[in-house]
């Protein structure tokens, strides 16, 4: 097995006196697609936000290529440029057009020149079908369109890892597919992805491994077949039963 690209060790996160994550351990290998599933409030998003330090871990460590990202000497900005994130609420820059949203981070963080950034942006916007909207402002787009631009923005940084924080949860049902298709396409390119999602079909069909979280701990990790077809834990079974019955 190759060396893990991201390794979470004994991670603990406390908000006030509420322990949201306790003793989380797992590793993600290069090129892997890992889905994190679980109930709302089980700590999935908090785990993801700890990985790129939008939240500061209370205890434990997170390694990127074997180096701790919590060291004060660690270059956080470069790390974040290598580990992109797609948010549930899109968070496109409201003051910039679609094209600027995808260009500006490349120019600002990676110091690409305008022509290079623009060519790259247009290519990626075309891939997600958003090239006709380059001059629109985020306020003029639908949720699904915004999320596709947000994916293009994250991919434009040529990241090693992409984190998805419930990317389809805020979308109308008919727009979910557009976004999932864009993500599936990315999964085939060999990009490492960690996806917090409620889309069980995506988790089953696209992921290499599935993490099931419950009450701040990892209850079960396994391949999609293990988790969906032969779940070992009773709570995994119960969760999946509810979900799959509903769908």
């Amino acid at each position: 097995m190759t060396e893990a690209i991201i390794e979470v060790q004994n991670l603990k996160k406390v908000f006030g006196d509420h322990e949201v994550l306790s003793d989380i351990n797992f590793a993600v290998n290069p090129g892997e697609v890992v889905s994190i599933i679980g109930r709302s409030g089980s700590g999935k998003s908090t785990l993801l936000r700890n990985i790129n330090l939008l939240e500061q871990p209370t205890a434990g460590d997170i390694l990127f290529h074997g180096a701790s990202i919590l060291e004060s000497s660690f270059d956080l900005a470069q790390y974040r440029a290598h580990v992109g994130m797609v948010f549930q609420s899109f968070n496109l820059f409201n003051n910039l057009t679609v094209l600027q949203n995808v260009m500006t981070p490349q120019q600002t963080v990676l110091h690409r020149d305008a022509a290079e950034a623009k060519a790259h942006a247009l290519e990626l916007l075309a891939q997600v079908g958003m090239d006709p909207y380059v001059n629109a402002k985020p306020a003029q787009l639908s949720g699904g369109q915004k999320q596709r631009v947000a994916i293009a923005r994250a991919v434009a940084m040529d990241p090693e890892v992409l984190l998805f924080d419930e990317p389809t949860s805020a979308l109308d049902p008919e727009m979910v597919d557009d976004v999932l298709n864009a993500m599936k396409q990315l999964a085939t390119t060999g990009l490492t992805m960690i996806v917090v999602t409620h889309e069980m079909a995506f988790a089953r069909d696209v992921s290499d491994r599935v993490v099931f979280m419950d009450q701040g701990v990892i209850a079960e990790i396994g391949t999609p077949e293990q988790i969906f077809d032969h779940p070992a834990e009773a709570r995994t079974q119960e969760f999946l039963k509810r979900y799959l019955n509903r769908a």
Partner: protein
Amino acid sequence: MKKFWATLFGAGFALALTLGLASQPVQASGTLKVGMEAGYAPFNWTQTTSANGAVKIQGSSDYANGYDVQMAKKIAKALGKKVVVVKTSWDGLPPALQSGKIDAIIAGMSPTPDRRKTVDFTSTYYASKLTVVVRRDSKYAKATSIKDFKGAKITAQLSTFHYEAISQLKGVIKEEAMNNFPAMRVALESGAIDGYVSEVPEGITAQNANPNLTYLKFSKANGFKTSPEDVDLAIGLRKGDPDKAKINAALAKISTAERNKMMNTAVAVQPATESEGNWLISLLKQYGPMLLRGTGMTLLISLIGTIVGFIIGLLVGVIRTMPKPSTRGKRGLQWFVNWLLSVYIEVFRGTPMIVQAAVLYYGVALAFGINMNKTLAALLIVSINTGAYISEIIRGGIISVDEGQFEAAHALGFTHLQTMLKVVLPQAVRNSLPAVTNEFIVNIKDTSVLSVISVSELFFAAETVAGQNFQFFHTYLVVSAIYLILTFSISRLFRLIEKHVDGPKNYNVMTNQMQVETPTIK
């Protein structure tokens, strides 16, 4: 209103005094800097030409003339100096004298005991007399004594010794005091009153301005009993001015007859109101350039003040919203800087601009002998004052930007500065624009308090004009219109700017990507 300002000013001046006393910048020079309102005809007024021996007003293209100006020329000649007229508001005269901005007050000022505390007065340079102004066709027009007014309805100007003097008129009906002379003239002409108590120069002016009115001459025995500190006008000097004796000697050589002649000349040549034709056209024709210059000054100060204040506000707002640093030393530094900034904001938001202007302009001159250019002082005060307000507006604008915008930028690897410059500030500034427009409009109006340091902005110009033509209502109506045009244009202009920042409402979906303009990233 004058009283209110005087109180405010007094507070500011007291503050300035406590900052540091003494060190009077007395320079021996070839000029005699004379302070006056240049808006109290016939003693002093502003005119646009050098006609009739007028003297140029310092830092202005207007000229001053009047009894005071002619007297100043005589005094200066006796001292072997040249007259420089420094146009100064009434309340600003004593501090201007003490701080060395002027060398003498020749402004129709009476040496009251209160004033004597801070100002040294020469002997009298004009002795005024009380009179009663009546209608030429009334039975009181032939009165020769203050005892001849039985049954007459008499008034005078509010809070003057004129009004108290009414009680010397036997058997009159004392009406409510009135605010200004034009109002009394109208009341007199309409028959609402039979006369008002005034001083002789005003009486001559009233008679010249309106042929239906006349003023009465009383012999000494039959006239009003007055105290010299009320009716005698003297020249104000700094305490211990070495030239006082020379000035008194010069005054002694000017006889009463010569003084009366000078006053009659002043009354005769004072700018008359052109009564023919449309009042608006004649007002604009006569005083248009003066009002226009005032408008320009108001616009300049409030525009530059708002822009510089905006830059200050942006910096302060950004510094105050910086995230907590990780090391203890930096945290301490941040705490200290934030403390300094909040002191700045609280002090400048918490004190009136008129006081700040007085402290900066007169206080600094008094304490350190630094003679600041008054336009520069005005720009400085308005900028710093506006900065204090705008930094809170910007801070609010930054706080109101969605947390997700910060997170997305950080997650992409932006530093705090990059996040601010490229993402947050453009949105914060956009959100703050309506409030900044407000500040600009407030500045346009609030620059009027700068007349305390004699900046000739629009309100100061309006006071000058109204003091000359006595058409208070008309003048202030025109000035209100100018203010309204300024503020309305600015609010429209800022709406356009907001629209421009927002970008077009529509985007062309069919735009070929090859034709897409490369966005300029600022």
